[in-house]
């Protein structure tokens, strides 16, 4: 029996591959979904605020407040939607979402400024979206600071420190550059962990896994047979995403493409093993699916630093992210794609991924052994 194992394995891999290829619908979605995601992330998901609707509350309009308003209007980002004498209408404007930010000037603004004291200006933002709220605040603050320095000239003894900032590795903060590495991780998790978990638990549900287990195929061969086609699929999709990102948005791969692909294979192995583990622990397709969602997809989307920076997370949560494989993969992918660094800089992350792969592979094979007893 053992002598025939390799050809049995080959036949089994072939059978699995045909299973996947036969299911056109799933295949189309699997290939299509990442591409749509690249487009969505690249075009639609932006966090910058471009059109800021400003409501000005100006109890005593005069030449000075007019100057201020003109200064604001001169900034392309701002659009003054209303000028009122009191704050009465603000609540309603915010509720209707007709204004994003309100600038409340004090009575006799010009007089106060002339007197030389500190003139209070109140800035109200709709902070139900705190990120936009903070961004909008800083834009308005900058515009007010401009107004001030323009008014004062440089003659007041004002000191200016010119801040020259440079966004290293992604000068224009192009969102596609940021999302594509994370997207690859997400898609690979989806394809490998979720698909494997479902397809294995399906065989379990339908009773065909029992048949496989009593066949001459050994447990590790079954796992390889299950896993290999998805590995190939994941690889194809990675190439597709990279190509699409390259052609549509010009997302660079500054480092070695081969290294990037090798690392993504390593990451795929980790995800696949996770999928096998989930399938071994659950009894139905739906349970496996939910398990894979909670156990792999959610951490990949939320705890990997893909969208939300890990350094921004609370102290207790930051160590938790270390067990999320995608967290390491994203560092690697960003390093290779945006920074153009090689293994010399990424050996630690690679080692962690490799360790995870080894550990999970052993655990996954074990979990299948256990079922034989």
């Amino acid at each position, binding site marked *: 029996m053992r002598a025939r194992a390799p050809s049995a394995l080959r036949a089994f891999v072939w059978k699995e591959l045909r299973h996947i290829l036969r299911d056109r*619908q799933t295949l189309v*979605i*699997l290939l299509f979904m990442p591409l749509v*995601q690249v487009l*969505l992330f690249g075009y*639609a998901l*932006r*966090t910058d*605020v471009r059109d800021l609707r400003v409501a000005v509350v100006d109890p005593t309009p005069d030449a000075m407040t007019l100057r201020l308003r003109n200064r604001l209007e001169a900034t392309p980002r701002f659009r003054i939607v209303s000028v009122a004498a009191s704050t009465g209408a603000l609540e309603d404007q*915010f509720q*209707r979402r007709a204004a994003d930010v309100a600038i409340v000037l004090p009575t006799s603004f*010009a007089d106060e*400024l002339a007197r030389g004291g*500190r003139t209070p*200006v*109140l800035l*109200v*933002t709709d*902070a*139900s*979206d*705190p*990120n936009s*709220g*903070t961004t909008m*605040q*800083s834009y308005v*603050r900058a515009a007010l600071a401009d*107004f*001030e320095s323009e*008014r*004062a*000239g*440089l*003659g007041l*003894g*004002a*000191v*200016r*420190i*010119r801040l*020259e900032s*440079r*966004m290293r*590795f*992604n000068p224009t*903060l192009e969102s596609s550059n*940021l999302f594509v590495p994370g997207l690859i991780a997400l898609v690979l998790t989806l394809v490998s962990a979720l698909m494997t978990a*479902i397809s294995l638990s399906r065989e379990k549900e339908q009773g065909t896994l029992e048949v496989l287990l009593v066949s001459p195929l050994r447990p590790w061969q079954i796992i390889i047979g299950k896993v290999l086609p998805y590995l190939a699929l994941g690889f194809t999709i990675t190439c597709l995403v990279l190509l699409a990102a390259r052609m549509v948005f010009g997302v660079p791969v500054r480092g070695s493409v081969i290294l990037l692909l090798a690392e993504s294979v390593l990451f795929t192995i980790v995800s696949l093993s996770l999928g096998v583990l989930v399938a071994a622990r*659950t009894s139905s397709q*739906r349970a496996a*699916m939910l398990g894979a969602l*909670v156990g792999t997809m959610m*951490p990949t989307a939320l705890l990997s630093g893909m969208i*939300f920076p890990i*350094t921004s997370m609370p102290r207790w949560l930051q160590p938790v992210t270390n067990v999320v494989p995608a967290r390491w993969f994203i560092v690697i992918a960003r*390093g290779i794609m*945006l*920074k153009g660094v090689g293994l010399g*800089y990424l050996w630690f992350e690679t080692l962690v991924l490799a360790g995870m792969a080894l550990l999970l592979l052993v655990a996954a094979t074990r979990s299948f052994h256990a079922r034989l007893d």
Partner: protein
Amino acid sequence: MRILRFLLRKEYLQIFRDRIMVAQLLLLPAIQLALLANAATFEVTSARLVVVDEDRSATSRGLVDRMRAAGRFRLVEATPSAERADDAMMRRKAGVVLHIPHDFERDLVRTRTAPVQLVLNAEDGAAAGVTLSYAQRIIAEYAAELAVTLHLSPVVGERPVGGQGRLDVRARGWYNPDLDYRYYMVPGILVQLVTMVGTLLTALNIVREKELGTLEQLNVTPVTRGQFIAAKLIPLWSLGLVALTIGMLVAHFAFHVPMRGSVLLVFATASIYLLAALGVGLLVSTIVSTQQQAMFVTFFIVLVYLLMSGLFTPVRSMPTWAQWFAQVNPVMHFIEIMRAVMLRGAGLPEIARSLAVLSAIAIGVFTLSVRQYAKRAA
């Protein structure tokens, strides 16, 4: 009616018998809320700062001190070598490099203006933007401070226009004064939860009967199509509301997310929204034949819906075509209403427009899917 009652009993029994499903259904919102509420923030609490101070004057040291004292930056290294700083950034040891050039102090005293360079690691784009704005503020404040301490006299003949007063800008964030990101995310996550339960479970539930062959058996019984759909959808509809209730309780007691508006309004909206969610699930079940397919199709639709709904990024920052697309996206309207009611305490008049659009979409999708289902099964 009797048949429907029996069918409903069967459906509820099936749902509750599946312990794991129920447990996961209850757990899912809790875990997700816990994760998202804590992880989903762009706020930068401690950016790792490397300083390259070539000036080494009292003024440049003062700037570094201000950066450290602000609490947003953590000084990890001070080095005279720009290459070292660059390498630290390559190794992700540094998020920000502040470069103070030679003659910083001298230039400031002589010309009242001097440059400094700030290099940010834009790998984490969102964090880099936020970090920059912190740095801008600290540096501007330091400059204002220097104007006094350096005793720079005004240039003769120049006078400020309109007095010497300075603006004292105070910011206030309405509805969320502490700028707590959780308040913003939680209503959106609740919507996602209801969507997942409504759409995914509906599709899976029906396709499962298809896969097992029990759908065929049902088709040859006196059960009519309408009864079948009603028996399938009513339990899931109620399950969606149960999931929402659990989510709201977790949000309230664990995360202290305010509920400024009427709870009734939230549930009324959810009831309407669920029609759309269930409808999409039903529609998916008509075009697929296995649970695996159902999952992927649903996942795909829900993902596009969620990404384009303003859950993570504001709709108004999207390009125009995406904003139009968002208008016919039921998820977008539901999230809008949830945020308005929970955070801003909006009442029926404020959300009337969104609610009307949402109802129209929900009824449209639901009718379409029921028709499609009847046609397919016939």
